[in-house]
Every structure is written in C-alpha cells, then in structure tokens.
C-alpha cells in the first residue's frame, strides 16, 4: 500500500492501455450518432401476430422504402404483450416530413399491417435537421462550460493550499481521462453492439464528469489537510500516498454502493435507459480510478517537475501519460 505513488507510471500505462484502443476506434469509426444529434426517425413497432424469428429485416426495409424511407436500418427485437412474447422491430429512418408527418406515418403503419397483421407503434421519435444541429451545438457548449466552471470552483476551493491552480488542472486532466475513455468505449460499443450516442449518453457523460471531480476532490481534500499538518520528514510523495490510503476505504465503499444501484437499474430498470446506466457504470469506475491513480499522481509528477527527467533518461513507461 505504501508503493501506490511509486508505481505511478504503471498506473498511467494501465490508463493508456484502455484509452488507446478507444482512441483508435474513435479515429477509424467515430461515434455512432443517434437521431438526437444526427436527425432522423426512430420507430419502435410491435408485431402482435408474429412470434420472434418470423420477421425479415430485408422485407421491412423494402416496405419502408416503398413509403419513401429509403435506406432504413432495421433491428429485430422482442417484447411482451399480455405475457406473450412477440416480435418487435426498431427501425431508424430519415425524419418524417415537416409538412405532413401524420399521413406518412399512417401509410407506413398500414403497409406494415397489410404484410404482418396487427402492428402497434410503441414509440416514434422524429428529429429534424435543424433541431439535431442545435442539440449538437449545445452539447459541445455544455461539456466545455462544465469543465470551465469546475476548474474555476476547484481553484477557489483550494486557494489556501500551495499552487491552487495545480489542483484544478490535475482534476481536469483526470476528468479528460474519463471523458476520453468513455467516448472511446462508446465508439467501440457502437461498432460491436451498435450502441448509439444520444441525449441520454450525453447526460451520462456529464454525470461522469461531475462524479469524477467528486472523487478527485475527496482525495485532494485529504492531501490539502495532510499538507497543513506536514511533518518535516515527510516528502510530498509520502503525503500523497498516505492520503490515498486514507481515502481508499471511502472510495471503494462509495463505488460499491453506486455500483449496486446502477446494477439494479441495468437488471430491472427497463430497456430505454440501459445504455445510460451502462455508460454511467463504466464512467464511474473510471472516475474513481482516475482520481486515485491519475489526479493525485499527477500532483506528484508536477511537484517533482518530472518532465525534466523524461527527456534526459529517455522514454519511460507511460511517458506521455500527463496528456491523458
């Protein structure tokens, strides 16, 4: 336990190990944007007279195309009606017409029911191009505003400690670590299971940001306190290590309780918020990790001005770590 700080470059390397594949995926595939940010329509349709496995995505695609929705993406699922499992489909198409959405919708539904019998439209969302462009713009503004506001608050909160700006910047770096990690994993999940980045994803991301800072603050608060009661023999490394050990039980326990509530949401909380909760779960674990193994460790790197050493001795494991 007293080697937590000594091993700091290994922790940075572990972070990179998870982040780099995500970054590669981001660079190659990007994010799979949901209709909130790219515009389009999402139909959730239940085929009451069909059992799962009796549907054909290609056929549904053709029906949509015949009604003017070419290139629709069809995903088959199943759902419950009166205790019976029936076939469902989630179809993503371009957005409904702005002038006459209702007749368009009815044409599609009646074309589907001609083919498959009774259909229930469970939900239908359509987002126009202007709205999605505005959402994307405000999403970017929201993330930046959150970062800046937290940086300012942290600098104020730690103004009594030596080098208050350092705490703010290290907390932000840990936060960027979590954001990049979550984005990377979202990109990978987009490729693997087709997960889409929608407004709820952004909600999860911003929550991850605030919880990441939450964790970092708890560790920094201990460092701040222990610096005040510093004994002359203690180095800065010792203090940070000591502070991490002191806050570790709290970090683990809080992580566990949040983990329990989120698991309950994933298992029982319904389909529509499952992605939100999954991202929260990944982000919160990353947030706790980065507060202990990145944010606090970066303070040590900064205190010792270790970047002077990196170039003199050549590459060390995780030498690029401060960027994450």
């Amino acid at each position, binding site marked *: 336990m007293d080697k937590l700080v000594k091993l700091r470059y290994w922790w940075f390397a572990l972070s990179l190990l998870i982040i780099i594949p995500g970054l590669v995926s981001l660079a190659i595939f990007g994010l799979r944007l949901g209709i909130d940010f790219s515009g389009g329509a999402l139909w959730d349709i239940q085929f009451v007279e069909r059992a799962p496995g009796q549907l054909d995505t290609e056929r549904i695609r053709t029906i949509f195309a015949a009604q003017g929705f*070419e290139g629709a993406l069809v995903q088959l699922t199943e759902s419950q009606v009166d205790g019976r499992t029936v076939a469902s489909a989630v179809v993503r198409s371009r957005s409904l017409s702005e002038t006459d959405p209702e007749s368009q919708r009815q044409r599609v539904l009646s074309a589907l029911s001609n083919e498959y019998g009774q259909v229930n439209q469970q939900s239908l969302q*359509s987002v126009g191009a202007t709205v999605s462009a505005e959402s994307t713009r405000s999403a970017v503004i929201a993330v930046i505003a959150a970062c800046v506001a937290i940086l300012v608050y942290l600098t104020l909160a730690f103004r009594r400690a030596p080098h208050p700006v350092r705490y703010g910047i290290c907390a932000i770096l840990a936060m960027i670590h979590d954001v990049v990690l979550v984005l990377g994993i979202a990109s990978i999940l987009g490729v693997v299971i087709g997960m889409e980045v929608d407004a709820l994803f952004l909600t999860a991301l911003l929550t991850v940001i605030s919880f990441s800072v939450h964790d970092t603050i708890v560790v920094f608060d201990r460092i701040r306190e222990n610096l005040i009661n510093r004994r002359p023999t203690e180095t800065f490394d010792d203090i940070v290590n000591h502070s991490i050990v002191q806050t570790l039980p709290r970090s683990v326990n809080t992580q566990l309780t*949040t983990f329990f509530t989120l698991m309950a949401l994933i298992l029982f909380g319904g389909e529509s918020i499952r992605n939100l909760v999954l991202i929260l779960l990944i982000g919160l674990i990353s947030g706790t990790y980065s507060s202990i193994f990145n944010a606090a460790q970066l303070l040590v790197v900064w205190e010792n001005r270790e970047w002077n050493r990196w170039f003199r001795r050549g590459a060390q494991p995780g030498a690029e770590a401060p960027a994450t």
Partner: protein
Amino acid sequence: MRSRDIYSFIFILLIAGIALSIVFAPEGRWLFNRNVSVRLGLDLRGGTQVLLRAAEPVERSIMQTAAGVIERRINGLGVAESVVQLSGDDRLIVEIPGIDNPEQAIETLRGTGKLEFIDTRGEFLAPGTIVRTTGSPNPIALRPTATVTGTEEITSTEATSPTVPEGPIYESITDGKDIDLNSVQPPQIAGQSLQNQFAVPFAFTGESARRLEQFTAANIQRPMCIVLDNQVFSCPVVQAALVGGRGEITTSTRQDAEQIYTQLKYGALPVPLQVESSRTVSASLGQGSVDASIVAGLVGLLTVALFMILFYRLPGFLATVALLLYTLISFALYQLIPVTLTLPGIAGFILSIGVAVDANVLIFARLKEELRRGRSLNASIDAAFVEAWPAIRDSSVATLITCTILFMFGNTFGVSLIKGFALTLGLGILLSLFTSMVVTRTFLHAINPLPFAQNPWLYELKDAPGMRHAREAA
C-alpha cells in the same frame, strides 16, 4: 441528548410528518387544495411531444397568438394536463399526454384553419385539390420538398424556402379572419343523400360578408369553391345572393367534421406550422417503464441498505433510516414543486441515493478514525462531521454545477429529456446534504447516551479506548 439535538430531532419528525402527509395526501390534494399528485412524464404515461415551427419568418407576438389558438383548441378537445409553450422566437412545444391517437390530435391542433370562398372563374374544382389563393398564395403543400435519397445527410432547411409554386392564383372573396366564431356549430348530419354527410356551419361577418354578398349577387348559377387551408372542399353553384355570409363545410366522416370544427371554432392560426420534431410513446410502453423503475428503485435501495448495515453496523443502520427519510422527502418534493417524473429523472433519483450514501460513508470513515484515536463517542461524532464537511461541500458544489449546466442544456428542445435527470439529481444533492449533515448527526447523538451504543463492535472496531473510559465511568 443536548437540547440542540432535541430541537433538531423534533424538526426532523416535523419534516417527516409533512412529507408523509404530502405523499399520502388523499386524492392528491394537500393544503389549500393544492394538487400534489404524482406527475409522470410522457415517456412514462404515454403521449406525444412535438416541436412546431412557423413555416415562415414571424414575430414573437404572432407566435404568442398561435400559442393561444392552440391552447383553446386543446381545451376544446378536452385533453387534460397538456402543455403549450413558446420556445425561442418561432417555435412552439406542444405536449399531449396519454390519449389514444395523439398524432391525430396534433394534426387537428396544427391545421391553420384558414377558411376561404374563392372565385374560380366558372371552373369546378375537384374536392381535395390544393389551390393557390390571393389570401394564401404559397401553401406549404405545394412547395417543392427536398429530395432525399438513402440515409444521406438531410439538408432540409432549404425545403421551407419560399420558392414560388406552379399553378393559377384564385381570387379570395373572403378573409379567414372575418369568421364569426360564434356561428361555428358542432357537426350536424346533413341528410340530403342516402350517404351520411356531416356539415359544419359557419358565417362570415364584416368586409368578407359584404364582398360575399356582392360576388354571389353577380355570379348566380356559377360555381364558387369553399377552401380550407388551400384544400378545396366543395364547389356549390350559387343559387341566390348570399346575405349574412352563411355557409357550411361538408365532409363524409364525422372525424373529419370534428377536426374542422375544432380548427374553425377557436380561430385560425396566424401562421402555418410545421412539425420539426416529435416523440410519441405508447401508454403500454410507459407503464412497462414505470413498473421496471419501481423494481429497480426498490432493489437498489434494499442492496444499499444491506450493504450499509453489514459494513458500518450501527451507523450504517442509522444511515439507512436517514436514507428512507431521504426517499420520502424526495418524493414529497417531487409532488409539491411539482417535478414531472421521467425515466431519466428516476435514474437521476436512484443515482442520487448513491450520492446520499457517499456523504455518510465519508462521515463514518472519519468517525472510525476518531474512535480509534481514543476520543469518546460524543467527541468523535462532532469531529467526524467537522472534518468530513469540506469534502462533502466541495463535491456537492461540483455536482450541482454540472446539474445546472445539464438543466440549461435541457432547454434545447431536442434533448429536453435531460432536464428531468438534472433536476432530480440536483434536488437529491441538496437534500442529501440535509439528511447526512442533520439527520444522521442527530440520530448519532440520540443514541450516544444509550449504554449499548458504547460498544466498539457496533462501529466495526476491535477497540475504542474512548468508549472503554465511558463504560468504566458508568
């Protein structure tokens, strides 16, 4: 117990009592008949939310008029708890909860309801034809729409640009503004033929009535068409001069007649509206989500309670009681403010349980440290709260900042779901400050004088020197 603790104990009981009376208020009515029933969002009860945008550049005042018209139409339809809200300069957000065919209702609300008699210069136009009139020369239905192929990027903003459509412009004899709203009557069966026809009577007044009289006097035995929102409904032949501007519009189904009645009765919209975005959720899907959320909430609460009691023993048990109180007050607040509960909102609440526990975890960690150092239980409790406070304060503020930003971001229509999440999480943070700093502390002080509480095992410790002294002294 010190007197301060007795006061806060009474205060807590009072708050709990008020919260209970709100949550279990009979028929959702509380003091002064305030409605405190649980409000569920559209994603939980089913319904539709649309963003309507003016089809042409307008001033805000015109949109306010439009909002008024739509509101009157909704009331005419008899839909409870619907929302009509101005957003920006040229948009309206309309929410219609839990009815059978919300899309149909939106179409009724959105129809401009501009009724005209037009001079077709002797022509009979087939019912259903879309025409251009001098009163409305540029109908949306005749504008070229953007041609979109495949899943290409949709640049449909140009689709609404006022390109001049083809076709002749017919002279409007009347102005839709001059309709006498009192003359518009509910649909009646027009039984002239075997097939049922439904008629909605109306009358024009003022300038329009005068011009209608002039026109019909000069055009006996010639056709004249009745046009609603640029769509021809019928072209009766003028039999005699029309005095008093009366007429009727006939349809073959009652549903259509009802729709036209609603649109005419509450006045025409001053500007045509387009559906920019929409979300519709069926009531059954909503009910499924409610059930799922209740199970998830209970399981989450139960696991956290078990964990807290197993790990922190006595303080954990007290924190669990505080957590139940927290849940109770949360729901009382949701009903009192009121907060409309959405699925992300419930997720925000369940997440805030974790936050509420975190504050307690921080405090108990400090409590253990203090006890280990040999302080008495009483002194340890006070010290634990003082030392844990800066971390709790700073982290709460950081989360509140994010909640505020999320809430402001949620004002953008496309992502309004987020608002509920930000609101419940933010409220949860503030409330958890109260439950951890006041409720848990009061509870700890309350058990302090009890002899059984002076047992290190209850605090997950092998030995607490401070307690030994207390026991020996007793």
